[in-house]
């Protein structure tokens, strides 16, 4: 299964910047394995980021996003110690949620 997301959130000058590195193959469904069989599509379809339980960002993704997706975004507000929670779902119904505190 996918490994944990690496999330960094830091607040400065009234803005919190969040960087997320997810662990996911993001298979397009176009590649073939060594025997010539198509590797089935397997990619994150949706991600939701929350600050203290309030949604700040929702991203719909397709297989054009690179393997082990990287995401960076900023929102106004946020203070050291607040919680940032990131959840994703993929096209096979798998999902993952990780959270960190803002530095």
């Amino acid at each position, binding site marked *: 299964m996918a490994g944990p997301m690496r999330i960094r959130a830091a607040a400065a000058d009234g803005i919190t910047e969040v960087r997320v590195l997810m662990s996911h193959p993001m298979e397009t469904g*176009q590649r073939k394995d060594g025997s010539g069989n198509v590797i089935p599509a397997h990619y994150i379809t949706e991600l939701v980021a929350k600050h203290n339980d309030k949604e*700040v960002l929702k*991203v*719909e*993704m*397709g297989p*054009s996003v690179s393997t082990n997706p990287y995401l*960076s*975004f900023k929102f106004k507000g946020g203070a050291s110690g607040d919680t940032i929670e990131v959840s994703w779902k993929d096209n096979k119904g798998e999902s993952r949620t990780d959270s960190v505190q803002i530095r």
Partner: protein
Amino acid sequence: MNHQRRDALKAGGGLGIFGMLVAAGLVKPGSALARDQKVFDAKSIDEALAALGAGKPDVSDAITIVAPDIAENGAVVPVGVNASLDNVESISIMVEKNPYMVAANFHLSAGTVADVQTRIKMGQTSDVYAVVKADGKYYMAKKEIKVTLGGCGG
């Protein structure tokens, strides 16, 4: 109060009306902003714009696509979009020559800054489009990114 209502209210209490409806099973979570697969299945930029409801967006120099002119590795091309427009609601990144043209749609909540970055795959040299919805209106910008080693596989 009956047991189920109490549980539903407890579960939904922190989330307001929407949460209560979800707890009551009347509304599936996420259905209000369900992924529009038509957008991701689009086979041309015009089709993607139509599926988004964007019509023919005005080109805006308030949108900047931050990306290399030449991508060293088509599998991992860093692309950022920032828009100095007010009330940005969404940002879409599209790659014209990719088999899966729409890479990502960002839906920004109020207070989220219109400055996002991600990394995308590019199969070949292509125009990359940023389509931004601000105050209910659509704008776009594009930038050509040259790719020497394609990143879509095979």
